[in-house]
Structures are given as structure tokens and as C-alpha cells.
């Protein structure tokens, strides 16, 4: 069961990370902590950091480097216009899948 949950979460990480950055920019560890604070969305930094690097490479995220009070400069991420379109597509797919699965489950229940 644990493996299924892990795989299920992995499929949604990109959507969750982009959704976190939709309104406000944030740096890597901040994103990890925000997701951890939401029940059921616990993801590890080893999943988030490579994802952020890939999304930046694909230009779905813009990176701004800011001096940090605690150590090396921080990389703040923000969704680009292309990223916003990508996010909306993912949200549309998510809602479609969610509706279909709910329909299936309700159909089995009745």
C-alpha cells in the first residue's frame, strides 16, 4: 500500500510544486516545508530539488538569486507565463481524472 501511495504522490508532485509557486515565489526548502505542512502531500527534498531544476530548464519557472542571511545565496522560483499555461493544463487534467475516478467509485457504491 505504501508503494502505491508513494507512486501516487510522485505523479502529483509537479502539479503541487507549481501550484505552490502560482501566487508567490519561494526558495527550495521553503517549498518542501509548505508541502509537508499539507496533510498527504509530504514530499522529500530529493524529489523537489531535481524537479525545480528541470522546471527551470524547461522555462516553466524563473529563478532569482538573492543573498541569504544564513549561508549561500538562495534561489527563489516563480512561475513563468509558459509555466502558468502548463499549470492550467495540469489542473484541467487533474480535475478530469478526479471526476472520472469519483464517478467510478460512486458507480461501484450504488
Amino acid at each position, binding site marked *: 500500500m505504501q508503494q502505491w501511495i508513494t507512486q501516487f504522490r510522485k505523479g502529483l508532485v509537479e502539479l503541487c510544486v507549481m501550484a505552490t509557486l502560482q501566487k508567490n515565489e519561494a*526558495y527550495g*526548502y521553503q517549498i518542501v516545508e509548505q508541502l509537508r505542512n499539507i496533510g498527504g502531500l509530504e514530499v522529500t*527534498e*530529493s524529489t523537489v*530539488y531535481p524537479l525545480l*531544476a528541470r522546471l527551470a530548464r524547461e522555462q516553466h519557472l524563473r*529563478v532569482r538569486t538573492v543573498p541569504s*542571511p544564513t549561508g549561500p545565496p*538562495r534561489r527563489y522560483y516563480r512561475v513563468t507565463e509558459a509555466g502558468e499555461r502548463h499549470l492550467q493544463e495540469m489542473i484541467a487534467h487533474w480535475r478530469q481524472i478526479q471526476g472520472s475516478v469519483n464517478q467510478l467509485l460512486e458507480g461501484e457504491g450504488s
Partner: protein
Amino acid sequence: MMMTRLELDAPLRTLIDGRLDTIERVLLQAEVSRAERVSIVEEVENQIHELLSRRTSGEPTRADVLAVLASLDPPEAYAPEGYRERLVEQHRVENRRRLPQPSMLAVGSAAGGVLTLLLLALGFALNGFESEAGLLLMSPLILLGAGLVTAGGIVSILRIRRSEGWLFGLPAALFAALLFPLLGANCLLVIGLMLLDELGLYGVVLLSFAAANIYLTYHIWRGISFGYQRATPAADGAS
């Protein structure tokens, strides 16, 4: 808590850099592009510094750094999933080719024990211990042999236990580890008996010693073999 910039001394910096370098090496082996490697490693570095700042308001100690590093995901976790799966499969294939092997140390120690016993018997047979020269020559050899055999037996027990089933030979290792300690203990007890000169009890006590030896050996065997199982390579036709 107000976070201030950390001043890390060189040894602590080395600990952190070591972890970051390991992550970078894993990403390089996984053929992640340089730009992405730099990005990921910098994020981890930032996380480490932030966690250290939250942990202590002053200078972090070695224990602080080790605790933070221990809380991180392992370096392999940052690699793409396809690479991790290949690593797991590679490890599985390597294990399939492996066969459990006898512990040469256990075999050698047991053989050494037998040779030392033969040397001891030869010494008695040739009356080697009756002359001073014979005693000076034979005793160190036998003591050295006994020490090496016992040490070899103990070390081979530990190695076999730690091998997760890829080494076998616990009986030989136990024989080597116990041979001379038990022999020595029995000799001391027999000498003690002879001094007491309780002839009537002599036979009974010898039988009791034999029983005690067997009992002790059996329980030590149960202890060292508990949970040990010889590894079996996966059956796929490969030799």
C-alpha cells in the same frame, strides 16, 4: 528565531562539502546536466545552512552538522528514478552471480587448531616437554599456535555473521574459537582435581566436565548461529 550567517570552521565545512560532493558524483553518474547538478547541490547546501541556523544560535558543533546531514535524504535519492532502478537491478544481477563461499579464515583456523594439537601430541610422544630445551622450543610454538587459532576463530565468526549469508563455515569457526580455551579450562580443572585427589569422584567429575563442555559449546553455537542463514543466489539459470 533570528537566523544569522553561520561561520563554519574548516573541519565542519569539509563534512558538508563531502556530502555535497557525493550528491554531485551521483548526479554525474546519472548523467544529469551540469546546470541541474549545480542547482540541486546549491539547494541542498542552502537547506543545510538553514537547518543549522535553526538548530543553534551560536557556532554549530560537529554534532549539529552530523545531525543535520543525517536528516537529509541519501545521495542516491537525488538521482532520476530510472538511474536508481538501474542501480537496484545492477545490484540484483551482481548478487545472482555470487555464490556463498566458505570462510577461508575459519577453515584455516580450524586446520591450524588440528596442527597445533598434533604438535602438542608429538611433543608429549617424543617426551619433548621433559627437557628444558624441548620445553623452551615447543611451548612458545604451541602457545602462539593456540592464540592464533583462537583469535582466527573469533574473527571468522564475526565475519561470517556480518556477511549476510555470503560466507559460511560457522562450525569450523566455532571449533577454532573454542578448542584451546576449553582445553585449557579442562586442563586446569583436571589439575585441580588431581590436587584434591578425590579418586572416588574422579570419573564422575570427568563425565560432568564432558557434559559441561558439550552444554557450553551447544549454547554458544546457538548464540552465534541465531539468525544466520546462508545466502541463496536468485535462480535464473546463470552460474
